[in-house]
Structures are given as structure tokens and as C-alpha cells.
């Protein structure tokens, strides 16, 4: 089993409530990400964020990214408890919007100017990402000329150029072929492990692919009465600590029986979320 220990809290969702119109969407959402460390190597954090469609995952992301003000509650970043504000975290949105009036290169350029003031350094970084994402042949294309998966990779690259430590990804695996899912998974792990404080939160309906790279899982759901009718807004109903279970940071994860067991456990829980 991998050696690990938890250090500071680097992200905290503190009693977040969200009401839209007269609809309670989120109710008392609490969650935190702690810096998971492993002696002798740099380990970032990857949280898999699961839940049925329409439960409020995207809304929570918008709140965490400082784009949407919650009705009450707070989200804090870092050991200094900095409140969420736009730009504090990268967000790859569900429909991966891009600047349609700019080429792929233009889209990346504008995202990189804040973090890379030096033009040469910027170019190097952009081209390494273009190669990484197999986008080099499309650098002069407009977003309208790209496939869904290509657009998504540009959107991811754009956020990578701009963010410091945090990245929220809404459905990074949707619309990708299995090779690309593997590629994106590897890349997520690699980005996470570039810095001890790097934290990537992934919303996905692909439980297996998400659990395979995550160190923690959040399951969002609502309280229900005996007949299965929801009686509250959504919250993080269950969390899974994969480090504790010895199911994180492992290459061979899919072959481990306990992993399959856990996936089945999650599948069962889903019916009641």
C-alpha cells in the first residue's frame, strides 16, 4: 500500500447554499481537499466528483470558480483561506467555449499572456501543449473548424496556460474515444503531479475512468424520503478516500478486485442519490 499522509486543507467548500427562483439547488454543501503527500515524490490532488444529471454539479463548479455567488456559504482556497473569485481556478466548462473569432493559436496566446509575460517562454509553452494535445496541425484553424474532441483539448490547454494550481473540469471524458480518454487521463495525472498543491476536480459520468485516477471521490445527492422523493437540496452525500482504501496512485488499478468492488458500491449508491 502506498505511503501517504494528509497535510493542510487547500480547498474548502463551507456550508454552501444555492437557491434559484424558489428552487433549492444546493443545501449545506460541505467538502474539502487536503494536501495529500507521499514521502519522496510530488503528489497533487485529483478529486472525482460524481452525481446524477441535473443534481447541481455544474452549479457548484460555478460557485467554486467564483463565477456565481452562492445564496450563502463560502469557498476558500489555499492555506490563507482566500475566498473564491473569478480566475482563482481554471475551469473547463461542459461545452468548452472558445473564442470563435480567434484561431487555435490565438486562443492559447490570449490565455497565456497573464502567466507568461515573456514572449519566447510563452511560445515554447504553447507549442509544447499543442504537441502534447496533437493540435499542431490545427494551430491556424478556427474553433468552428475543429471536432468536438479537438475543441475540448484546446479548452483544456487554454485553462492550463492560465491557472496556477486549481483546475475544475466539467465532463472532460465526454465525446472522447477510448485512446483519447486514456491520453486525457494520463495528462490529468501528470498535471496534478507537477506541483504538490495542484488540485484537479473532475465532474464525470464515467465512474471507472474517474475513479481510476482520483485519490478522493465526492458523490452528490439529495436526501430522500421512504418513497424516494427528494426532501432537500443537493449536498456531498458520500465521500470515498481512495488513499485510505489503497486504491489511489496505482497504475494497475483496474486489475485490483477491490477497485471493481468499490465501483459496484458506487453504482449501488447512485440509485439513491
Amino acid at each position: 500500500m502506498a505511503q501517504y499522509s494528509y497535510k493542510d486543507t487547500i480547498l474548502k467548500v463551507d456550508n454552501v447554499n444555492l437557491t434559484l427562483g424558489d428552487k433549492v439547488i444546493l443545501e449545506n454543501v460541505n467538502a474539502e481537499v487536503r494536501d495529500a503527500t507521499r514521502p519522496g515524490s510530488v503528489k497533487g490532488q485529483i478529486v472525482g466528483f460524481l452525481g446524477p444529471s441535473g443534481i447541481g454539479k455544474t452549479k457548484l463548479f460555478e460557485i467554486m470558480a467564483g463565477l456565481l455567488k452562492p445564496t450563502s456559504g463560502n469557498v476558500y482556497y489555499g492555506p490563507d483561506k482566500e475566498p473564491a473569485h473569478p480566475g482563482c481556478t481554471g475551469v473547463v466548462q461542459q461545452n468548452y467555449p472558445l473564442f470563435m473569432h480567434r484561431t487555435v493559436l490565438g486562443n492559447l496566446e490570449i490565455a497565456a499572456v497573464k502567466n507568461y509575460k515573456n514572449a519566447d517562454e510563452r511560445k515554447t509553452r504553447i507549442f509544447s501543449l499543442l504537441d502534447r494535445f496533437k493540435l499542431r496541425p490545427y494551430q491556424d484553424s478556427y474553433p468552428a473548424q475543429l471536432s468536438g474532441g479537438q475543441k475540448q483539448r484546446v479548452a483544456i490547454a487554454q485553462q492550463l496556460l492560465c491557472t496556477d494550481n486549481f483546475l475544475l473540469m466539467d465532463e472532460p471524458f465526454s465525446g472522447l474515444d477510448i485512446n483519447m480518454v486514456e491520453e486525457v487521463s494520463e495528462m490529468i495525472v501528470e498535471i496534478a503531479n507537477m506541483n504538490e498543491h495542484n488540485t484537479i476536480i473532475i465532474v464525470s459520468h464515467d465512474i471507472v475512468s474517474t475513479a481510476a485516477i482520483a485519490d478522493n471521490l465526492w458523490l452528490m445527492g439529495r436526501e430522500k424520503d421512504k418513497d424516494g422523493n427528494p426532501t432537500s437540496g443537493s449536498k456531498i452525500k458520500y465521500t470515498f478516500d481512495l488513499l485510505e482504501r489503497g486504491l489511489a496512485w496505482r497504475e494497475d488499478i483496474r486489475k485490483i478486485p477491490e477497485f471493481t468492488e468499490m465501483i459496484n458500491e458506487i453504482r449501488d449508491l447512485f440509485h439513491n442519490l
Partner: protein
Amino acid sequence: MAIMIAIQMAVFLVLWTTSSFRLIPTPMEILKSLQSLIASQNLIYELWNSTWLCLKSLLIATIISLIISYATVIPFFKPIGYLISKFRFWTLVGLSFVFTLITHSGHELKVTLMVFGITVFFVTSMVSIIQSIPKYEFYHARTLRMNEWQVVWEVIILGRLDQVLEVIRQNFAIAWMMLTMVEGISRAEGGIGVLLLNNNKLLRLSDVFAIQLVILLMGIFLDYTIGKLREFFFPYSKLTLEK
């Protein structure tokens, strides 16, 4: 496509020339009228005169309209955009009197009327384009650490610039329609509208048709030119369309 249009045109021309309905002048009569209009009534000059009036008004109206439309992203200016779009339902006829009082020359009056007429439509289209920008586009720009001014610049101004040209194109059509009417209100300076009205009064039917044909062709040509400008400056604007 070109062949189809050619065939349709040919059929139309044959029907027209052989038609026994004598009220409408034949193509030959119109061509002759055209010749005499150019020779004795300065058709080319008047056409240029009117086109210049139209384009000048369009340019001024575009600048005013864009300033107003972009300003509506600031809540304070929102009601102004709304109000201006309601002026579309105000007819120019009564207004011309007011504008006569505040302008100094016939030319100025015509430009003012045209600018007013275009602006109310332009602002309406532009405001609706700006308001239909989905929230996630703003979110996207904000997550890239742009401040609110940069968001407005990138998403609203640059991101919709190709659509401005489309609005200009539509408003050019409106302006072109208004032209003859406005020229009728202040005739001193001439223009193709005045030429049309004079010949209409004298019941010179083939002349009237010739002038209308010229107006139509010039309108189509300019419309086409604006369309080409859009393709040239904004190559991405047509990429998502079927053709």
C-alpha cells in the same frame, strides 16, 4: 446555380418582351430611357450623389449606434437602448419638421433624417445580439483572468464584430429604401430620388422604370460588396453554416 439563374432570367425576359400588357415598358424602351437619362438628366451624377448620402449616413449611424449599443452593457445605459429601439415606430414624416428647425441645410436635414432612421433599427439589432450572448461565454473569459473591460472587449466587441457587418448590411437595405423618401422631403440638392419623383409626376413610365432598375442594381451591388467585406475580414463567420 448560375445556369439556373440564367435560364430563369431568359424566360423572364422573353415573357416581358412578348407580353401584350402594354402598360409596362419593354426592355428596349427602358434602355433608350436610360440613355437619355444619362445624357440629359445627369443620371450618373445623381446616382453618385444619392449613394454618397446613403453611405455617409450609414457610417455616421453605425458609429452612433455602436457607441449606444456597447454602452448598454453598463446598467445605467440600458434604458436608453430600449427607448431608442421603440423609436422605430415613429414615422419620419412628422419628425422632418422638427429636424428642419435644428438643421442648417437641406443636406444636413437629409443626413439627420437618414441617421435617425438607421440608428433606431441598428441599435435594436445590436442590442438583441449583445443580449443573446450566453452566460458561459462570459464565464469563459472570466476564468481566463480577464477583467470586466477585457471581457466586454473580447466577448462583446471582438467576438461579435462579424455580426456588426451583417447588421450594417441589413441597415444598408433599410437606408436604401428610405433614401428616395428622404430626398423627396428636401429636394434642393437633387439625387436619384428627386429624379424619380419628377419623372413620376410627368408620367414618363419608361424613365421611372429605368431609374428604379438603376436603384435596384446599385442596391444589390452594394449589398453584395458588404457581404464580401464580411467574408474578407471575418473568414470564420461563415464556417458554422451549411454552405
